[in-house]
C-alpha cells in the first residue's frame, strides 16, 4: 500500500459501494476496481473488508444479489441497488459532501 492511499472507514466504504453500484449491477471485483480507479488510486479498497460490507448491505436490504455470467463468461455474483439502497445513497452522499466541505473550510482557514 503506497503512502498516498488512505484507509477507509466503515461508513465511507458503504457509501462508495452504493455509489459504484449506482451505474448498474456489478460483481464484487468490479466494485473494488471501480472505486480504486475513480479515486485515482488514492482510495484503496481493502478486499478483506469489501465482501463483508457487501453482504451486510445485502442483509440490510440496500442491495440485491443475483448470480449471473461475468464479462469473461464465468459465474459471478452480481449486486445491484434496491430502491432503499438508492435512497440511502442519496442521503449519505449529501451528508458526506457537507462534511467534507466543512472539514476543508476549517483546514483552509488555518
Amino acid at each position, binding site marked *: 500500500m503506497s503512502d498516498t492511499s488512505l484507509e477507509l472507514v466503515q461508513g465511507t466504504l458503504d457509501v462508495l459501494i452504493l455509489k459504484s453500484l449506482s451505474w448498474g449491477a456489478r460483481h*464484487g*471485483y468490479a466494485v473494488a476496481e471501480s472505486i480504486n480507479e475513480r479515486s485515482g488510486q488514492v482510495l484503496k479498497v481493502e478486499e*478483506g473488508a469489501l*465482501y*463483508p460490507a457487501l*453482504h451486510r448491505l*445485502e442483509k440490510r436490504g440496500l442491495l440485491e444479489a443475483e448470480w449471473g455470467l*461475468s464479462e469473461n463468461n464465468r459465474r*459471478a*455474483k452480481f449486486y445491484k441497488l434496491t430502491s432503499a439502497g438508492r435512497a440511502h445513497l442519496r442521503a449519505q452522499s449529501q451528508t458526506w459532501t457537507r462534511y467534507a466541505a466543512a472539514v476543508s473550510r476549517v483546514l483552509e482557514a488555518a
Partner: protein
Amino acid sequence: MQLPPGFKRLLKLAVRPRAVEQDVDDELRFHLEMRAEKLQREGLPPAEAHATAQREFGNLEHVRAECVRLGHERESEMKRSLFLDALVQDVRYALRTLRKAPAFSLVAVLTLALGIGATTALFSVVRGVLLKPLPFPTSERLVRLWQASPALDSPRTVLSHPDLEDWKARQKSFTDLGAWWHVQNMSGVDLSGLGDPELLQATYVTDGFFSTLGMAPQLGRPFLPEENLPGQDAVVVLSHGLWTRKFGADPTMIGRSLTLDGVPHTVVGIMPPSFTFPSEQMDVWVPLSNIPESGIPRTRFNRFLNVVGRLKPDVTLETARAELGGISRQLAEAYPDSNAQYPGITAIPLHEAITGDVRTGLLVVLGAVGLLLLIACANVANLQLARATLRERELAVRAALGAGPGRLVRQLLTESVVLAGLGGALGIALAVWGTEVLVGLSVHQLPRLRDVRVDGEVLAFAAGATLLTGLLFGLLPALRASSTRLEPVLKAGARGTVGSGGARLRGMLVVAEVAIAVVLATGAGLATRSLARMLAEDPGFRSEGAAVVSFSVPDSRRGQGRAYLAEVLERVRALPGIESAAMVKYLPLESTGEDMAFNRPGHPEDTSNPPHASVMHVSTGYFSTMGIPLLGGRAHEATDTQQTPIVAVVNQTFARRYFPGEDAVGRSVKVDTTDIGIIGVVGDVRQAGLAEPAPPLVYFHVQQFSRSATNLVLRGQGALLPMAIAARQAIWAIEPNQTISRITTLDEVVSEAVTRPRLLSVMLGLFAVLGLVLAAVGIYGVLAYTVSQRQRELGVRLALGAKPADVLRLVLKSGMGLAGTGIALGAAGALVLARVMGSILYGIAPHDPLTFGGVMALLLGVALLACLIPARRAMRVDPAVTLRGD
C-alpha cells in the same frame, strides 16, 4: 429470463436454497481469479499471480466466516418475514370469515371470554395466596412451631414464655426463634393524645422476631435485645400503613413519642409496606416485655406465644423436628405439672401454616373453573365442526386450487387462535374485574390477599390459556376438515349435504361436556349441602335480635377491672329499651377460650391425661341473654363475688363426660389447690365454629376471675344499631377514653362463621350453572344440526306413514343417548372430585347419594329440555316440502 425480484426470491426458496457456504466460496474464488488474471496480464507468472492475489486479499478465512454468518442471518430473517406475511394473510382471512358469521363469532367469543376470564381470575388468586413465596428473604426456611399434646388431641398449642426460653437455649437447628402474641380484637393498644382515642392493632414480639423473619425497618431500627427486658423505656415500631395513614409518612417520626395505653412510647422504627405479619391489618409492634407479669404471668402453665424459626442452611425440617421433640420431652419430664401433657411438637413450613386451611378449597375452585374452560372449548369446537360442514365446499375449492392439507390446517387453526385471542382479550378484562370481586368476597377469609394482583405473570397465564384454548378447540375440526375428500363434495353440487363423519365427533364432544357438567354440578351440590348441614346445626344459642359491643378494660383502670365492668353492666341495663345485657370474654363460634386442667375429688385420675375443659368468663345474666338453656342448678348471681367461694356453671358435655350418670350440680372440681363448686349445668354451645362440636366448658363469673377483654351482648326493643350506640355512650359516660374494638350483632357473628364454606358453595354453584348452560347449548346445537341434516330422511319416514310421535322418539333417543353416556362418565369423575373435597365437607359423606342422585336427575332434565326443541321441530317436518326439494 427476467423475473420480478420478489418472485425470484420465492422461487429460490422453493427450489431448496444453495448452501450459503457454497455461494460465499464461489464468490470469493471468482474475485481471486479475476485479480490473479489481472496480475498475470501485468506480467506476473501464474503461480506468483495467485499467491499475490491471495496475499493482498488479507485474511481469507476471516472474511469467509463473516460473509457466511451474514448470509445465514439474512436467510433466517427472510424465512421469518415470509412466515409473518403468511400469518398476516391468515389472520386477515380469519377476521373476514368471522365477520361473515357474526352469530357464531359472538357466541364463541363470549363463551371463551367467560372461560378464560374466570380461569385467569381464579389463577391470580391461587398464585397470590398459594404459589408466591412469602414476602420474607429465603422464606422457604421459615418454620412455624407449636407444642403438641396427643392426650388433649391438640397438635398445635402455643408456647409458654419459659418453654420458649428453654427451646431457644437448647436448640441448634435454627439460626433464631421469634415469637409473638397477637389476638384479633384483643391485643390492641389505645393510642391517645392525638385527637379521638383509637384502638391500634398491636403485636407483642420477643427479641428475635424481626431477625428470624429476616425483616428490618425501612426507617429507624428494630428493637434492641435489651429493650425486651422488663423495666426498659417503652419503644414501638410502626407499620407502613399506620405511618402513612395517621402521620402522613412523616420522615421525622423516628424518636417521637406516642402515648399507647397511657404510657409514652418512643418510635424507633417503621417497617416496609410489604411487612404486615402476622395479620393483614397491623399497626404497631411492641416488645413483649411491655406486658407486665400481672397482665400475662410468665409461667409454664400460661401458653400464649406463637413461634417461628429460621432453619440453618444445612439443617432439614426432619432434623429440626427430632431435636425439638427431644427438648419437648425433656421439659415434660422436668416440669410434669405443666408440661407432662405436651411431650410433642408440630413444625410445618410457615407458608403451609398460613395457607393450609384454604388450600384444598382454592384448588377445588380452580379445578372447577378449569373444567368450565374445557366445556367452553368443547362447545366452541362443536360450533366449529358444525360450521366446517357448511364450509366443506369452500375448503374443497381451496384444496382443488392447490392449497395443501398443511396449509388448510394452518388457516383453520389461525382462525381458531384468532377467535381465542378475541375471547382472551375480553377474558382478561373480565379477569381484572373478577379478581377484584374475588378479593372483595374473600376479605378475612383468605390469607395474603395483598399478594393477589393481575400482573405480567397472570397475563402470561391468560395468554397461554388463550393459545392453548385456541389449539384445543381448533385442532380437531381443522384436521377433520382438511382431510375431506374433494370429489364427493364438489359433485354433490350446491346442496352441500355430504359428510356425516363429523356427527360422531360432535357427539363425543357433547358426551364430554355433559360429563364435565356433572362433575361441576356435583362439586357445587356437595358444597351447598355441606353448608346447609352446617347452618342447620343448632349453635346452642339464639342469635337473632342481639347486639354486641366489644372492648377491653383500659390500662388506666388496671386493677379496678371488676368494678369497672360491673358499673358498665349496671348503666347499660338501666338504659331505656334494654331488656337484658351480659358480658363474655369469648363469643360463641369465635374461640374456645382458655384451657384448664383439673381434678375431681374422689375420682382416681390418669395423671398423664387429667380432665380438662375450656374456660369462659361471663357476667350474670349471660345464659338468659344468649338464650342458652339452664338445664339444672342455677346461674351466676351478683352475690358470687371474690369474697364468696368460687363457683362454676358447666355445660352438658362437661357434665356427661366427667360426671356420667350423676348430677354434676353440687359436685366440685379442684384446680391446683382451689376447690370449685359446680352450681349449674347449661346447654352446649358451639364455641370453635359451627362445624365443631362443643368442648367441655366451664363458666366462671367475671367478678370472681376477672378478664379485661369482653363482649357486651344486648337484647332489647327496637333496632340493634341504636341500642349498641346507646350502650357505647353509656360506657363513654363512665370512661371517656374507652376504645371500642367493634360493634356487631350475633347474627353477623354466625354469618362470619360460615363465610368460607359459603364462598366455596357460591363459587362452585356459579361455575356449575355456567357449565350446565354451556352443556345444554351443546346438546341443543348437536341435535338441532342433526335434525336439519336429516330433514329429508325424516320427511321420507313421515311420508311412508311414520307418526310424528315416532319421529319425536327417534330424535329424543339419539339426544338422550349422548346425555346418558355423559352422565354416567361424569358420575365416575365426580366420585374422584368428591374424595378430594372430603376434607372440606361437613356432615355429609363425599358420595352423598342425595347430591349424586339430584345432579343426575337435574342433568337428565336439562338434557331433555335441550333435546325437546329440535325434536319438536323434527315432528313438524312437512314431507311434501322436503321431498319437493329434490
